[in-house]
């Protein structure tokens, strides 16, 4: 037996001894049914509102967490909204972006001077652009799934992160996000990382004063696309 297996068996054995139990079919089945069909959790009322209200809630919390929220009337407006935000923040018109099909299909022709570099983020990228899998209204939280389409480093390396999220992906509570992830990746499966992002990076570790951009982005700009 390998050392690794030794450790495993020792820990499991100790737990069983402490619980005064053993590996029974009944206990296995209790666990299997909970994993297969989780009992409905307690969802706060604020997460159960109509979608129009959820949009306001999402915006309220994200702005309260120091993010910028822009609503675009349609996907066609997104490139211009991005360019306008970058100009307003005095940033170069250059973004790092993955292979996301939705983002690739946007009307970039409207902003010919906006450069898109493909791939994972590198050290000197100033702006990352991602497409969120879901937006959770209850706490103003973006849900990003890693992959070639939306590399995880885009969320953390550049000083500015722009995230596009579609209105159809706005959900009330975290449960809505689990549903979307399960539809996309299957039950009991996840991509390498799922990132809940609820504002720019921050710290209050020095002098108790809140400062943005501790290690990740100093700025988070969310574009919520309607229609």
């Amino acid at each position, binding site marked *: 037996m390998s050392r*690794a297996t030794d*450790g*495993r068996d*020792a*820990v*499991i054995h*100790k*737990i069983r001894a*402490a*619980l005064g139990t053993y*590996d029974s079919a009944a206990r296995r089945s*209790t*666990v299997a049914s*909970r*994993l297969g069909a*989780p009992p*409905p*959790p*307690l969802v*706060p009322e*604020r997460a159960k509102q109509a979608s129009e209200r959820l949009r306001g809630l999402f915006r309220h919390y994200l702005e309260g967490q120091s993010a910028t929220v822009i609503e675009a009337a349609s996907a066609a407006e997104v490139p211009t909204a991005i360019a306008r935000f970058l100009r307003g923040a005095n940033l170069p018109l250059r973004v790092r972006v*993955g292979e996301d099909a939705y983002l690739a299909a946007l009307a970039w022709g409207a902003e010919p001077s906006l450069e898109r570099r493909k791939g994972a983020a590198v*050290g000197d990228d100033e702006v990352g652009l991602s497409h969120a899998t879901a937006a959770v209204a209850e*706490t*103003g*939280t973006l849900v990003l799934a*890693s*992959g*070639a389409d939306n*590399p*995880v480093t885009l*969320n*953390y390396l550049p000083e500015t992160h722009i995230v596009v999220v579609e209105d159809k992906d706005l959900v009330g509570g*975290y*449960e809505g996000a*689990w549903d979307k*992830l399960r539809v996309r990746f299957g039950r*009991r499966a*996840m*991509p*390498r*990382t*799922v*990132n*809940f*992002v*609820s504002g*720019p*990076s*921050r*710290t*209050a*570790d*020095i*002098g*108790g004063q809140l400062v943005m*951009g*501790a*290690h*990740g982005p100093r700025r988070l700009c969310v574009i919520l696309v309607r229609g």
Partner: protein
Amino acid sequence: MSTLTSPDFKDNARAALADKQLQRALSEVAPGLAARRSAARAALPEFEALREAGRDIKDHTLAHLDIYLDEFERKAAAAGSIVHFAPTAEDARRIVRDICRDAKARLVTKGKSMISEEIGLNAALEGDGLEVVETDLGEYLIQIRGETPSHIIAPAIHLTQDQVEADFRRLHTKLPPDRQLIEPSQLVAEARQILRAKFLAADVGITGANFLIAETGSSVIVTNEGNGDLTQSLPKVHIVLASIEKMVPTLEDAGTLIRLLARSATGQEISTYTTFSTGPRRAGDPDGPEACHIVILDNGRAELLASEFREVLRCIRCGACMNHCPVYTAIGGHAYGWVYPGPIGAVLTPALIGVRNAGHLPNASTFCGRCEQVCPMKIPLPGLMRHWREAEFSAGDAPLLYRLGLAAWAAAARRPRLYHTLARIVMPVLATLGRRRGRFRRLPLAGGWTRHRDLPAPQGRTFQALWADHHAGVPR
């Protein structure tokens, strides 16, 4: 292992009370966190119901922990993680050292992990010649001073901005000596610049885990800085350090605990970053680690499942009990002398390092009960501290005078007549002696009490005597 000074708790506490700078920091930070928690709780009507749901999730998971660990391991392995079980701190250190050696690592970055403090990981890795860099800003600030955390979510609350500036000037010598470091934002920017280079150069990234999810084999970290994400996404190897009780069954269960964690800790609706990691990078992924190891530590926790201290394993390490504790807020975290301070430390520390080493901790409580009131997992902390006091007493570890005093008290309290007789004799004497001031500044055998406060003098008659008069209709 983190240097153990819990046996010197009384000296530590005395020093902390005399430390003006620490007192100023404590008087600001902990009450601020408590007030923000209170506001967050008020903003979510379901908060109390969520606490009950959270408690039930953990109780269910602990009762089936062997099977959930099995499920977790299976799912994590299916996603490409390598799961290691470490019965002891030494096992965990050996596993991590071996992984670093196999990866030919020279530089290791670390996200915040209390377990890493518990097993003394940094010293072990540094002993192997590795450079180990803490990346949580608070952890970095104390690492460069050679100190330990004083709070589990705000590890550097005992430091002032001036101290940080002095440390940065002493250590970051490649930067211009005449640079401005007046604002916290300037200090943060400097730390960002220094640590960014470490993130990019690291060979191995080590993070803790707030939760392990059996459903998907995922580990979860919660941060506000994003340091944990850079730690685990950039190096070629990611090591997760977790202990057995971090387990939850499903994503839904993790969601319930996430709803409680940040609100209890900092009063945020949610922390800025909550990250679910499942295995190494996938085929086609342009970033993420090439290998992911998950080290699951027992280190004495399984035994707690069989004991009256089982409920302490529900803890999600939010720190609310500290922010609301009159003892913690008076002396800070270092006085507790080991990794876990405050009420949770007063219960957990004796369990992990022995009541003989940490017997002072459960005794340093006023039993005011606020820790239990605010604990998101409804852990009955005062009751568990009382168990430790009993255990210490039964083991014969309590000081002789304390034992004799308690034995004398018990003898009188169990014999009502004797008690009443003694009270009738002693009380008028004390009342007469203390008549002038109405209180005692000094009393023989009670120096521990009167050193910090006065003892009110009895008013002359016992409660029983007054009660008897009251029943007999005698006017007062």
